[in-house]
């Protein structure tokens, strides 16, 4: 795809001719060499500061430490699973509230959604953990649920609202009640179209499970920290980061790619014809911006 991009004219530049292409190739080669030099320098630094000595990598050979890491990863995934499940449920409830015909219900739901979206998720987690004295896992899950549930409520709502108006009018004119219109017509189409955004929001939830580290929940990063602060292995901090981050980033990337793939698939799906499929953007949906 990237190779084609340069063959197309954009608002910025025309399709390059042979001489420009050669110039671009030269730029490309020079910058590649510079980048490789930068990478090489970093690798040199790593060697220079003795990050590849056997002592620092030995801990990863021990079964106990491998088990510690796996347990941390399991705890991360457990927190993510609970948070995803509960925030989808909370999102559904709050979206129903915001789409309600009864004004007080709508106001209450709006208030809750706006408040929880405006608060830093870490403040909520700390509040639940410190002030309400809840155990780390429930505190983490509750904080993530409140935040992501509120964001998802907005996603659900905008999905339902983005279904073509004719669909709703047709359903009502067939004599359906509001509940029927919602459950049979609007929600199935809206949710399908919003599936990419919903999954992107779950990536945010997965990333934010690492906040559990800050409230001493024994998740992946916590396990890493335990190994990294071990004097017996000469404080293998960089090795730990080098082992942990590919796994963490890999998991999130996998889920992100799934969202993008889903977006591409849904665009071709006849079941989402009446709705515009949302692109799989990373969730930074915030107050004041719809």
């Amino acid at each position: 795809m990237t190779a084609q991009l340069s063959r197309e004219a954009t608002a910025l530049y025309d399709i390059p001719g042979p001489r420009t292409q050669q110039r671009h190739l030269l730029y490309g080669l020079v910058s590649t060499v510079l980048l490789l030099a930068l990478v090489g320098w970093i690798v040199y630094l790593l060697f220079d500061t003795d990050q590849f000595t056997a002592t620092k990598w030995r801990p990863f050979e021990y079964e106990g430490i491998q088990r510690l890491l796996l347990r941390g990863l399991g705890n991360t995934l457990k927190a993510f699973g609970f948070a995803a499940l509960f925030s989808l449920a909370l999102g559904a409830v709050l979206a129903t509230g915001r789409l309600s015909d009864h004004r007080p219900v709508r106001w209450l739901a709006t208030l809750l959604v706006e408040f929880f979206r405006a608060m830093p998720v870490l403040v909520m987690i700390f509040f639940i953990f410190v002030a309400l004295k809840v155990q780390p896992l429930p505190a983490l899950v509750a904080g993530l649920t409140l935040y992501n549930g509120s964001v998802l409520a907005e996603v659900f709502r905008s999905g339902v609202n983005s279904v073509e108006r004719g669909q709703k009018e047709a359903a009502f004119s067939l004599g359906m009640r509001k509940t029927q219109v919602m459950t049979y017509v609007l929600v199935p189409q809206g949710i399908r179209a919003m599936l990419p955004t919903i999954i992107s929001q779950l990536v945010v939830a997965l990333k934010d499970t690492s906040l559990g580290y800050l409230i001493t929940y024994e998740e992946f990063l916590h396990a890493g920290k335990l190994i990294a602060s071990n004097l017996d292995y000469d404080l293998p901090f960089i090795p730990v980061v080098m082992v942990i981050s590919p796994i963490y980033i890999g998991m999130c990337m996998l889920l992100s790619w799934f969202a993008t793939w889903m977006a591409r698939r849904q665009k071709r799906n006849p079941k989402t014809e009446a709705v515009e499929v949302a692109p799989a953007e990373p969730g930074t949906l915030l107050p004041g911006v719809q």
Partner: protein
Amino acid sequence: MDVLTKNFSLYGKGFLGTVELTVYASAVALALGFLMAAFRVSPVGSFRALGTVWVNVLRNTPLTLLFFAVLLGLPRFGLVLPFKLFAVIALGCYTSAFICEALRSGINTVPTGQGEAARSLGMTFSQTLSAVVLPQAFRSVIPPVGSTLIALAKNSAIAGAFSVTELLGTYKTLSELGYDIIWTFIWIAVGYLIITLTISAVFNLMEKYWGVAR
């Protein structure tokens, strides 16, 4: 209630710490994001690759992990800086990925015909960029950049947990002093609301002045 009045200077220090982190990290994020967006739309393949990797990796990195790696990892390379500076770097780099995507999609909203028309009038690349493409892109990136910067302000709370002076961190001192923990948190929440609502108001104003009339 008296938690705020009796500890005003402590809250003030935390509040200013969060504001400072937000402002500096925003500057870093905007500058880096602009650079990366330029890379991502450039005709040179390796620049594009660098931009893509930067965005995809940072967007999928948990911010806590990034803080962990930067604040506790970089000193192992012999790079010892104040924690606040490390926090600004981590926050700025993380947010730059989101800024980059916002800017790039802003540039992509400018129709190809605009650039073609500019070039057919004989404008040079820099003229096309500064007089035609960027002004139009700027109008459509105001809302997404605003929401990204609000997210940055909220994310700065993580720095507090890594012992950088900021708003959330004040709870520790106050709870040790024996103040009512619920009210402590209420005032922290109010502080964050002030910051995020200010940013959102500024961007709403900008949107009103320069935004695309739809």
